[in-house]
């Protein structure tokens, strides 16, 4: 079987799964799967760049996705002026103190001679600056959080349009690349530390940083309301209710023979799907070009033999940092899209199994090192994830129908059906690793 044929068959298969869901169940579900599938595909593309092309084991995908989500809030929400007046300056000052302290500490570490004096100075400086930071910062935070806590209690975003800016359809789309930038910034900092000094502790570093990012999002209420969630995020597409009262739309729907309510939900989802597809296709084209460029060949050379590449004068650490930032930025972009699609920021929803390890399953199943493979793998695994959750309970009821109606086993099996997702994902991953270790579409 040629590569092209294999790729086309896989693509047709994934398309059939989604279309089949539409035809056999309902189109709303099919489109929801498609939209989240497209976002998952973008995440998988980012991880594939890092893992497939460079061999970097990033298990902190969740953190970058969450940062993207934060960007979505920060860019699209209008600022809360009272909160800014109450403590905005103080919080900024606190952050500035923190940043300055880190800069001073780094300078001291670099400039002073090694020894006890330096250690002492470092310790005293860090303790002093920590307390200075907390004193200034905490005051600002409590001032902000006391401003109308049930509705805002945070600084809001940076949407300069104010409340009118909520209706600007292009604002969320701008937020997506900003999400990528935010993730890239974090990736730079992590990469500098983890890749620069010991390239060989990336896994644990990313695992930790992802937890920290999510902890920050959960706790720093002044920034994004923490677990109180920011709801009602602006969106790049019209609202269903607006469509339903738009006479032109209603007529068009009626002409197609669909009632206006269903048509509006489908239309919104289709618009999202279109937007996401544009981003995915552009990213995929860029990734494909990168893969076959001299840069991509160099990356693969480094991956396959780091020592030889280094001996040939390649700056391995720098290249790794580069691709780590790019891959993380793509994950951030996808995270921003997802938050916009959700319409709200819910930090508690970020769980590593769903946002880190599931993306890994997508990449490995699709084919590490193969961009198209990981994109299709992303869609496939996402379909499976939803399908097991949606149809699993029904299937379980059917499978246990032979059991006595009041049997405790039956009840517990039906209760546990939603947990089957994890079993299925693990089994799929293990089967692929065992029988097709290079994934469905192997790297060429």
């Amino acid at each position: 079987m040629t590569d092209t044929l294999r790729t086309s068959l896989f693509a047709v298969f994934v398309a059939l799964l989604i279309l089949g869901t539409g035809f056999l169940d309902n189109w709303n579900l099919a489109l929801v799967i498609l939209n989240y599938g497209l976002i998952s595909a973008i995440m998988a593309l980012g991880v594939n760049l890092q893992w497939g092309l460079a061999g970097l084991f990033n298990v902190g995908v969740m953190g970058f996705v969450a940062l993207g989500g934060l960007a979505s809030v920060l860019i699209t929400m209008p600022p809360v002026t009272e909160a800014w007046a109450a403590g905005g300056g103080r919080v900024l000052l606190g952050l500035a103190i923190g940043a300055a302290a880190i800069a001073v500490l780094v300078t001291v570490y670099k400039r002073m001679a090694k020894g006890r004096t330096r250690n002492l100075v470092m310790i005293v400086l860090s303790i002093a600056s920590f307390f200075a930071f907390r004193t200034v910062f905490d005051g600002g935070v409590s001032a902000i959080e006391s401003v109308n806590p049930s509705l805002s209690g945070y600084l809001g975003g940076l949407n300069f349009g104010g409340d009118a800016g909520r209706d600007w359809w292009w604002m969320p789309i701008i937020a997506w690349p900003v999400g990528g930038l935010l993730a890239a910034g974090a990736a730079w900092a992590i990469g500098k530390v983890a890749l620069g000094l010991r390239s060989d502790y990336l896994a644990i570093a990313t695992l930790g940083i992802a937890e920290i990012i999510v902890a920050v999002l959960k706790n720093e209420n002044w920034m994004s309301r923490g677990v109180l969630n920011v709801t009602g995020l602006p969106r790049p597409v019209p609202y269903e209710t607006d469509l339903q009262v738009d006479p032109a739309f209603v007529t068009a729907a009626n002409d197609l023979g669909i009632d206006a309510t269903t048509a509006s939900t489908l239309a919104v989802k289709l618009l999202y799907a279109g937007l996401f597809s544009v981003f995915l296709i552009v990213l995929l084209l860029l990734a494909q070009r990168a893969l076959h460029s001299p840069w991509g060949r160099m990356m693969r050379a480094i991956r396959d033999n780091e020592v030889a590449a280094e001996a040939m004068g390649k700056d391995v650490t720098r290249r790794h940092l580069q691709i780590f930032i790019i891959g993380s930025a793509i994950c951030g972009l996808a995270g921003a899209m997802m938050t916009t699609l959700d319409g709200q920021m819910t930090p508690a929803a970020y769980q590593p199994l769903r946002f880190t390890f599931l993306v890994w399953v997508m990449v490995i199943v699709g084919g590490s090192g193969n961009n198209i493979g990981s994109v299709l793998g992303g869609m496939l695994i996402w379909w499976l994830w939803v399908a097991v959750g949606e149809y699993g309970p029904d299937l379980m009821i059917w499978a246990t129908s032979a059991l006595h109606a009041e049997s405790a086993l039956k009840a517990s099996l039906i209760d546990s059906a939603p947990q089957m997702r994890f079993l299925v994902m693990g089994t799929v991953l293990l089967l692929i690793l065992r029988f097709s270790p290079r994934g469905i579409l192997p790297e060429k």
Partner: protein
Amino acid sequence: MTDNPYRDDRGNNDRSITKSGGGVAQPVTSGQSSPAPGTPFLIGDAMTGGYGKGPDILHSCTIAVEPGEIAVIVGPNGAGKSTAMKAMFGMLDVRSGRVMLDGEDITALSPQQRVVKGMGFVPQTHNIFTSMTVEENLEMGAFIRRDDFRDTMAQIYDLFPILKEKRLQPAGELSGGQRQQVAVGRALMTKPKVLMLDEPTAGVSPIVMDELFDRIIEVARTGIPILMVEQNARQALEIADKAYVLVQGANAHTGTGKELLANPEVRRSFLGG
């Protein structure tokens, strides 16, 4: 990328998730031995073979050792010296030819089975357990023995007094020459019928090298035949009862050490005149 999809190198440098140094030996699968009376004590007879699916490195190469002898394999770089020894130890596929030990055909045995049959092998590198003490290294050498091996250990301490002194130190902290003594001691713990040394003096200073040769002669005096691969051809030939010069995986010259030292062709081609 390699042919084996499970052996890609991607991601293997991350120390928080992987530990390097896994086994690389790909021994021949274990089989049965069969009696082969009337052959030399240890002989690799007309061995032809190479690693895995690779090309042949040995071409009908024959190496034999009789009891009480020191036999050495010498030859230029890349002549297949170590390969010949590994073939006799079962670490590569012998496609034709046989290996026999003490009247038994052991060609089909795995290296572990050959150890049980009485072969002691000291690899060239990574030949000690660096994180374990000297004494533990010797104990591990005696792993297949279920009897009391304290006598053997005492004999080894007599042979290598420095090891007794350092017996509670981690072997990785010893000097190069001392490590080689640990390695030889470990192999002797099974009370082997034959001891095979792969370049025991690689990477040690000339003084240490002389001392190591002395120790090896002492080991031979205890009655164990020794087969040894050596880079330092001249010294090796001086102590050898029997010597094999290999060139490109085939026997080029065979004789006693003295004969070969006197052989003008051997002298000219690789003893440097």
